[in-house]
């Protein structure tokens, strides 16, 4: 391994001591199969000697069997995990690789270059601090280079390595290298990266991976490994305002009440004042409790348990924050949403939003525009299909605490979960709240009957069940409602008797019932009305006011009224035929 072998063999204790100070870097590699990405990562593992003899033996035999490098070792085979991919020669998902040197431990998110690209890359990049963007020196900057760069910037990566690969195929030409870099810099200027480091590489030949290549004497910058070992990724979250989402309330006994969570940003000391934005209540931190003893200070990234000076109501999903800089607390916000699922987004439908430990039903109330990942153009759109990105308004059923993603990656991100299939369907990055400090929750301002019906997954209807026999019609109506309820439909039942108006005011009754019907339809609900069939007045009035699609009536005697059918059977028949 690329560790200090001598120190390891001579003084293991000194070596272990030196390893305790090692830092960690997470990065993502972006590029397609053809760019030699897997070969590059295979090289990094290989050259940092993270490949063992038995793996090497397997690699050599695999290289001969399915390799694409002839007699040479195919480093890419170190990576492809799943059998199907190995056979097809493609990687189809995000895979994580690990290697370490004396200075750092590295976690590499390796994502495939073509199919499902956006989904996989956003997933891999969400935890990365650096993006290594591969470019084939022969091809220069392609559409996919722009896409990779844009997606890296979208998820908040600020450090980019432009790995200009296959330099061996362009005779290690400095001119070629410079022209690619220049073009890239002008394109990436708008993406907000803090730095762009270009490195001329040949993953296949090993040029500038670990040590400087004699073939590129003109390259003054670092090798890839030098860069990765030394890039300073200031822990941006440490200098920011204190935030911690409560994951777990720890109550082993009546004397101890601790709030467990991972500090998303900032730092905390015993005695510091904190606020809970959901209630506006303030108190002070009493202790920072860990199994290794109480801490005097805890910083972003640490998983801690805080006890507080006052007993205030705090539960999972609440955020603890510094009162000097309080996060937003709202039920509506604008966010960039990346769609991750084959089934497209349905605006107005209720999804489950999970932001850290906070969960709430949520709907996309509006797609402001879609973003074209290739051209960065804004385009109109009614929905988001798999791998599409849109700027959307979201409405939650209750407010949560958050920051903008730009300000705070940890408290500005969320996922959307399909409530029926439980699939993770969307990933979001919050821009800003839409109605500042709105504590009212679900806002219906821009919702119509269609959105309400879609949210409930049903076509609203007014169903009249008519029979002279009040007991009979009530029984059937009840059974119909139960049946609908068990199918997850949202309904409500009324009997003519319950609209007990003055005797004789038939017109008034009809008018009232029709108005009620209209309200129920607009609310997206199914209204079941049981009526006396001697009263054609009411059903006529309803027929006149409601559209025929959403109104239906059943006469228990005439339509399905064979005496042989039990009320249970009648109800089943009604539900089957009408819904």
């Amino acid at each position, binding site marked *: *391994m690329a560790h200090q072998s001598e120190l*390891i063999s001579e003084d293991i204790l000194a070596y272990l001591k030196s390893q305790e100070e090692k830092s960690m870097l997470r990065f993502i590699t972006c590029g397609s199969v053809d760019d030699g990405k897997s070969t590059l990562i295979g090289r990094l593992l290989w050259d940092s000697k993270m490949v063992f003899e038995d793996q090497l033996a397997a690699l050599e035999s695999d290289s001969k069997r399915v390799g694409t490098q002839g007699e040479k070792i195919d480093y890419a085979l170190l990576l492809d995990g799943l059998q199907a991919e190995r056979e097809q020669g493609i990687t189809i998902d995000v895979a994580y690789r690990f290697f370490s040197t004396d200075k750092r431990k590295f976690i590499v998110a390796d994502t495939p270059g073509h199919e499902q690209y956006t989904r996989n890359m956003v997933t891999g990049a969400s935890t990365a601090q650096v993006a290594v963007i591969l470019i084939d020196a022969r091809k220069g900057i392609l559409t996919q280079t722009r896409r990779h760069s844009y997606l890296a910037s979208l998820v908040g990566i600020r450090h980019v390595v432009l790995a200009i690969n296959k330099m061996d195929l362009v005779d290690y030409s400095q001119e070629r290298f410079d022209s690619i870099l220049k073009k890239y810099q002008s394109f990436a200027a708008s993406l907000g990266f803090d730095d762009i480091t270009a490195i001329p590489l040949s993953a296949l030949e090993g040029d500038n991976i670990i040590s400087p290549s004699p073939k590129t004497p003109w390259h003054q910058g670092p090798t890839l490994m030098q860069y990765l070992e030394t890039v300073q990724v200031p822990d941006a979250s440490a200098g920011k305002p204190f935030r911690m989402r409560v994951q777990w309330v720890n109550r082993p006994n009546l004397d101890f009440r601790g709030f467990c969570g991972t500090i998303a940003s900032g730092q905390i000391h015993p005695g510091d004042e904190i606020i809970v934005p959901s209630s506006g209540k303030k108190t002070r931190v009493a202790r920072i409790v860990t199994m290794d003893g109480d801490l005097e200070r805890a*910083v972003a990234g640490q998983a801690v348990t805080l006890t507080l000076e006052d007993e205030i109501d705090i539960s999972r999903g609440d955020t603890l924050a510094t009162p000097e800089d309080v996060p937003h607390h709202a039920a509506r916000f604008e966010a960039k949403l990346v769609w991750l699922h084959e089934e497209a987004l349905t605006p107005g439908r209720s999804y489950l939003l999970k932001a850290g430990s906070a969960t709430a039903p949520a709907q996309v109330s509006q797609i402001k525009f879609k973003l074209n990942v290739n051209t960065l153009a804004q385009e109109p759109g009614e929905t988001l299909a798999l791998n599409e990105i849109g700027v959307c308004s979201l409405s939650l059923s209750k407010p949560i605490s958050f920051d903008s993603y730009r300000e705070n990656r940890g408290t500005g991100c969320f996922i959307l979960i399909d409530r029926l299939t439980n699939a993770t369907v969307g990933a979001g990055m919050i821009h800003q709240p839409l109605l500042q400090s709105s504590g009212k929750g679900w806002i219906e301002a821009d919702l119509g009957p269609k959105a309400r019906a879609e949210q409930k997954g049903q076509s609203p209807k007014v169903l009249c069940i008519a029979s002279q026999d009040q007991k009979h019609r009530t029984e059937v109506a009840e059974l119909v409602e139960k049946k609908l309820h068990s199918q997850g439909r949202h309904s409500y039942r009324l009997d003519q008797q319950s609209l007990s108006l003055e005797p004789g005011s038939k017109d008034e009754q009809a008018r009232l019932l029709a108005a009620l019907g209209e309200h129920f339809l607009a609310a997206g609900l199914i209204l079941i009305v049981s009526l006396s069939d001697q009263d054609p007045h009411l059903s006529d009035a309803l027929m006149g006011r409601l559209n025929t699609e959403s109104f239906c009536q059943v006469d228990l005697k005439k339509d399905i009224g064979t005496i042989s059918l039990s009320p249970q059977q009648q109800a089943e028949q009604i539900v089957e035929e009408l819904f």
Partner: protein
Amino acid sequence: MSPKMTHLRQLEAESIHIIREVAAEFENPVMLYSVGKDSAVMLHLARKAFYPARPPFPLMHVDTTWKFREMIEFRDKMAHECGFDLLVHVNEEGVRQGIGPFSHGSGIHTDIMKTEGLKQALTKYKFDAAFGGARRDEEKSRAKERIFSFRTEDHRWDPKSQRPELWNVYNAKVHPGESIRAFPISNWTELDVWQYIYLEQIPIVPLYYAAVRPVVERDGMLIMVDDARMEIKPGEKVEYKSVRFRTLGCYPLTGAVESTAATLPEIIQEMLLTRTSERQGRAIDHDSAGSMEKKKQEGYF
């Protein structure tokens, strides 16, 4: 500027976050305890996550009845000392059929006593989440495994339809009968595990340390004679060698390595200077290419 968290502290915090998230989201979680070093780390992290309370879930060991005796002693001692409820499950049907690694080979033994045993136990106790100590660096097919890895009602893993996993936000939603395997130490490497055990002074089974033990060389592996069930074949002889184990499982399937490393630093030193990966000592992986992926689809951890 605040002090930077070292890589081990970052890994520790990530694992604690995962463990707490599972405990908070699921009704009935369990921690699968294999008694190995990775389990030892996981158990230690679980204690840290809920200190001063006890972790709010039991430990479960799927015992194939062929584990090293020292593993069983260590298991009972640790569960007792750390205040965990310990569930031990044995596939009694397999026992009745007399399934064992010597008589049936590693494939059938592992399938029935371990994979089936695990499924039985998960079904019996209706666990909706099970912690496992697997790491992504162990084997190629694990590199793509999610931290919250979804399992169908019949405990199968579908590598083609995994849920995307972003940031540290985990989707914990399952339908009744379905479950999640949660891997809190996914991002640790073997070296990280050893360094952490050293740093935190975590107790591990003595079998990891070199000692003189009775071994027989069989199929290129040094197998320890742990009890009388191991028959010595003609031509084999029991030798007393200074050996240790880099990985622990069923004793007939676990190869020892000759070693004199008797302390943690010596073990780490040996590991850093060695040239073979740790899973090599496991008979199960040699069967066929992609064998681990197949086993996982069937429900092996």
